[in-house]
């Protein structure tokens, strides 16, 4: 397949941990501007796929192409600079720093040692932080230490930390897990707003949420691709019904 239209092409991706293949010969393609949801039962390898794309885990075999860059040989921070943002399953923020500082550190400037030493908190940084804080509902908590935030607020903060990087591909690992109903609604709203001009890869269990946001769905099972297509198509696929939705 030609990959010029795809923002992300994963081909023949395999990773084996001591002989156990967590991801096995997986191929899928994500279009520019697409929202793709990955679903699958526990242990299907969903989080591992995200780990592989963002360089946290090294692939045993296969290729991950982002536009025209090959990710399998790049380091984590290089992948970030290429335009990929990753949100972890449990909120992963800097709890000893304030909300402002959390966002500021994620601002894509001063990434080298001396860049960081000479980094100036100028108007562009401050405006950008305020803009993102407003977007993630944390405008009034800017100078609060991040560990005092609620679980949902921490999730938002991490999403905000990705947004300030302005990534072309956003990867979210269970963004609404552990959120209250109200927070969930706000988050869906937030995601709809921020996914306008970028591609998104989401892992999610909440089917209502999947229905709300997904353009296409990829179903994984035991590290392999089980089914792919619209949610409607996937839901009616007998293989999927058997391993996942039926239980």
């Amino acid at each position: 397949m030609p990959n010029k239209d795809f923002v992300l092409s994963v081909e023949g991706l395999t990773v084996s941990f001591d002989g156990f293949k967590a991801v096995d010969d997986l191929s899928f393609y994500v279009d520019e501007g697409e929202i793709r949801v990955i679903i699958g039962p526990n242990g299907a390898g969903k989080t591992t796929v995200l780990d592989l794309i963002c360089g946290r885990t090294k692939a045993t075999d296969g290729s991950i192409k982002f536009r025209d860059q090959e990710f399998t040989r790049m380091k984590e921070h290089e992948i970030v600079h290429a335009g990929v943002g990753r949100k972890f399953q449990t909120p992963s923020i800097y709890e000893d720093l304030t909300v402002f500082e959390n966002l500021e550190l994620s601002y894509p400037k001063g990434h080298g040692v001396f860049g960081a030493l000479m980094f100036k908190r100028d108007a562009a940084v401050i405006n950008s932080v305020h803009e993102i804080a407003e977007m993630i509902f944390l405008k009034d908590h800017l100078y609060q230490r991040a560990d005092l935030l609620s679980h949902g607020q921490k999730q938002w903060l991490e999403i905000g930390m990705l947004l300030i990087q302005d990534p072309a591909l956003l990867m979210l690992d269970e963004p609404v897990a552990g959120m209250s109903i109200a927070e969930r609604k706000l988050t869906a709203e937030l995601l709809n707003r921020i996914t306008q001009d970028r591609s998104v890869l989401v892992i999610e269990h909440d089917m209502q949420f999947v229905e709300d946001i997904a353009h296409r769905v990829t179903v994984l099972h035991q590290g392999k691709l089980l089914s792919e297509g619209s949610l409607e198509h996937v839901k009616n696929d007998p293989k999927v019904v058997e391993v996942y939705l039926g239980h």
Partner: protein
Amino acid sequence: MTTSSSTHSFFQKKDVLHYGLLALLLIVILPLSMDIFRLNLVGKYLTYAFVAVSLVLCWGYGGILSLGQGVFFGLGGYAMAMYLKIEASSPEATAIQSTPGIPDFMDWNQLTELPWFWEPFHSLGFTVLAILFVAPLFAYVIAVAMFKRRVGGVYFAIITQAIAAIITILIIGQQGYTGGVNGITDLRTLAGWDIRSDYAKYVLYFLCVGCLFAVLLLSQFVMKSKLGRLLVAIRDREDRVRFSGYDVSNFKIFIFCFAAMLSAVGGAMFTLQVGFMSPTLVGIVPSIEMVIFCAVGGRLSLIGAVYGTLLVNAAKTTMSEAFPELWLFAMGALFIGVVLAFPNGLAGVYITLKEKLFSTLSSSESKTKPPVDKPAAESKAAIPNASPANPS
């Protein structure tokens, strides 16, 4: 750290107060109230404070526990001692040796000429450069080997401790080149200026205080830059920092080398003021003592580290004069006690007291306003971590 972005500068009003008080103590009160013997002793303790400050940077902020800071202290100290020893070993002064003109311990070890790596230490300029850059260079080699492979935490601490042991054994073993277990002793002049007179001791004491303040201000600048906040972030969530687009290992390498440089300056000041350098200041025991000074002062407070060093050493001197055999137990108990009861050391106690005072003042002032937790948040941000003795 600041509560408002507009006041974000590296030196704030409260810092002026804290630095001013320390300067008052070190520049006015102590020199006026002590004889030169005691003041020289304070000067010696202050050289340990350089190491304690360096540990605040790499351990307190960066989460990198080094149990081998004595190595860098020693590298600085030995560089200084080599220069002074060469100057003290003029052919006239060493005429009774079988090979005049080389340091006495070399003569005792049947060496007949100065080893090649001693030669450049004829030059004071080279010596100063060596003090400043040899230790960071050595630290760089260690740090690149460890941090690029993502070795950290306890493993790193153990490796630094092993390095401290190895270097000590090396110094003791190579007696002819290093002076062995006695170290390099009988140092006399610095570029012709006698460092043993009372006057020289006063001058060196003030030089040491001056260097300490320079080191404190430089460290303050580093910690208040974005790099300081990044170090805290790395300590808490190394992975997240990577996925915010930073090459984490570079930052760890930088702060470890920077800390090594500060320690080396302290070592050089030690040699100048005490008049010798020996492996007893390089090994595991002094390296761990330095960590205790830092912990007692508060491992997140640069100035706290200075007070911690002074207090523990004052206690050590008093205690070991009265009960020499009990001192080590007392030191151990002190460390455990501090870590359990005051995880943020003296600085933590100070901040808690100030906070209490502040809240009673503000609550009596304005009963109408609802309580805002801004001051509390601010002072907590200044002491970001409350978990005791957690190196990673």
